[in-house]
């Protein structure tokens, strides 16, 4: 086999690998990318009919539990979204603290499939921090704003 021929094989092989990789990535991206919205985004336009995550603070006094049926409000201090969840909420879930919820919107209520609480006292999920910053209620380094239900 000549050197040229061999090189051709390898280039073809490389292209095949690249093509297969690209095809895999594109199909996977189509199905598996999850968008993040703040409560303000949700209020502004009808998004997230399929699957997304939302984040913000758990509004104080909004948590209701009835067995495994849980409901609470997520707020970025401008807008608020009601969330329903069936299951046991994570340990570090607290009213007034940051939370990220996966799920979808269904007639104005966010049906959660997964609730992720932050994992220690000082940690604020970056999405939540962004949502709060965007709403103009919180700047880096300041203490966290109080989340109230009336707001």
């Amino acid at each position: 086999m000549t050197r040229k021929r061999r090189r051709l094989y390898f280039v073809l092989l490389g292209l095949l690998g690249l093509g297969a990789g690209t095809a895999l990535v594109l199909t996977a991206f189509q199905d598996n990318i999850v968008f993040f919205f703040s409560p303000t985004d949700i209020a502004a336009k009808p998004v997230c009919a399929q699957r997304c995550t939302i984040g913000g603070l758990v509004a104080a006094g909004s948590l209701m539990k009835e067995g495994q049926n849980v409901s609470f409000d997520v707020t970025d201090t401008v807008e608020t979204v009601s969330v329903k969840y069936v299951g046991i909420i994570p340990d570090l879930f607290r009213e007034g603290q940051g939370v990220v919820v996966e799920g979808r919107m269904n007639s104005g209520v966010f049906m959660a499939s997964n609730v992720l609480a932050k994992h220690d006292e000082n940690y604020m999920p970056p999405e939540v921090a962004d949502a709060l910053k965007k709403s103009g209620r919180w700047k880096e380094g300041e203490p966290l704003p109080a989340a109230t239900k009336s707001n």
Partner: protein
Amino acid sequence: MIIELGHFALALSLAVALIQSSVPLIGAARGNVAWMNVARQAAVLQFVLIAFAFATLIHAYVTSDFSVVGVYQNSHSAKPLIYKISGVWGNHEGSLVLWVTILAVFGALVAVLGRNLPPALRARTLAVQGMISLGFIAFILFTSNPFTRLFPTPEEGNGLNPILQDPGLAVHPPMLYFGYVGFSMAFSFAVAALIEGRVDAAWARWVRPWTLAAWLSLTLGIGLGSWWAYYTLGWGGWWMWDPVENASFLPWLTGTALLHSAIVVEKREALKSWTILLAIVTFSMSLLGTFLVRSGVLTSVHAFASDPTRGIFILMLLGIAIGGSLTLYAIRAPQMDGGGIFAPISREGGLLINNLLLTTACATVFLGTLYPLITETLAGGRISVGEPYFNAVFIPLMVPLFLLMGIGPLLAWKRGDLGGALTRLKVAAGISVGAAAVTMLVAGFALADIGGAFGIAMAAWLGASTLIEWGERVKFGRSGSWSRIVNLPRAAYGMTIAHFGMAVLIFGVSGASAWKTESIQVQAPGETVQIAGYGLTFKGVEELPVDNYTAERATIEVKRGDNIVAVLHPERRTYVQPPTQTTFSSIHTTYASDLLTTLGEAEGENGAYVTRFYHEPLVPFLWYGILLMFFGGIVSLTDRRHRVGAPRRAPASAAMPVPAAAE
């Protein structure tokens, strides 16, 4: 005072790094032996200075000197000694000092052990190491100084994040860093070879032990991280495609590819420029890993160190290191001769496909990890790319890799006989199909079990064909096979063990992914829950004050039928300083499967708690597999041929334009 000496030593080492990165290069270009030898002295001196700086930092943590900002922020006098020490690298500044310390260790090792290296190659390699060192020491001194004092001196420190107070995580960062930094050796050798404009079999023989050492550290480091996540994060997961995990996995993928392509360079003098490129890419991935973790740019459960300004500095470092080396590569690579010719179906061909699949896998993981960052920068929207993406992309790439992993070692160099190899692997194929059939039979022919059965078939295929290859090599069962078993080179045993370890790992992953069951509930004392044939009775919770935390300790009785097989005590720990809670799971293992229990929060007044139970079949095999791979690497490293400095350049290529070193 001591801490100022440490600071001073680090500043001095910056000057030494400056000399190490320039003088030997000029010396090598001019053929000046004295200037070239500066590299060795500088490397050793740098090691002494940086080790001293690191020691002063450890001293400050051990003696709880809270006048040092880092100690105040990350340590506490009531902490056990091991976590005082691991606290040194549990934060951004300290972890970078650990990084350069390990870099200095590697540099000094080359200087001391690399006596037989051609002086010019050694000088250039050490000079490149000096440049990396220069960048990182400057980064520490100018943006992340761990020696900063605090006035007035606080009485007590803030404490280390309790989630990091764990023996697994105390050794996880050093192992990982040994891997990352170890790949800097391959990088330095590659850049030195590019400057020299020559790569040959001897070069590959020098690079391989360093790459192997880095690879096995990284393997163990990733394994430790995974193990830690498994038993502390409290949901029984061992891999979640978290960006920080991916950051360590990217260099592992390309490093594994490098390990294999270096063999081709050594045995056949082919794939030279590809190997050089892989060395550059692997170290770039290591740098990127440091960057991703240390700048906190990505959403991650590990986001405990974040400061974007430092990120910009690291980004510049990355730009110079990657951009510079790739530019050099673009200029020099076309001048390198092509090397040995081989047919597509041959050992080389197999290793090339291995490389292709591993680098493609690396590229897809890379894209998935950085895609959220790219869209956020360009479009402003936030998205997340989660586990489903990685599973959908990664698994299809691994399946052909594992199939070929069975066949490749049976192919001859240069021109292989695929038909012959497949004939010899008939038994392996049979075992594989049999394993799948048995799995389906045990699982009850449910459609949901096909994935798991397929994985187990893969594991059986790889395990069996690895053993068959070993059997062929020693002509097992024929006369004289015993002496062949004894005399087989350790590098060959290393491969067999590591490949078999991979098979064990696949076995574990398949089982753990396919048949994990979980049960989350509120349990009042005395209530029993059934999971996977076990009955778990919640007996209640007691509070126990320990050193620096209070534990809520549950007692859970595990019954199989009527026999009590274990009494488990999962805990929730509330730390005093910093005020944080962690979960501490309790595991009953049969060494083939685990029953993992964690304790949640109290519910109501009657002593009821949230409890989480996970049955994790075959998870222990994950750890066995990783240990086997690590052990295989060690065995291979002890091979005489891999001993650093042992090989000499072939006489044909010994005509160096440089006089031999004085010693």
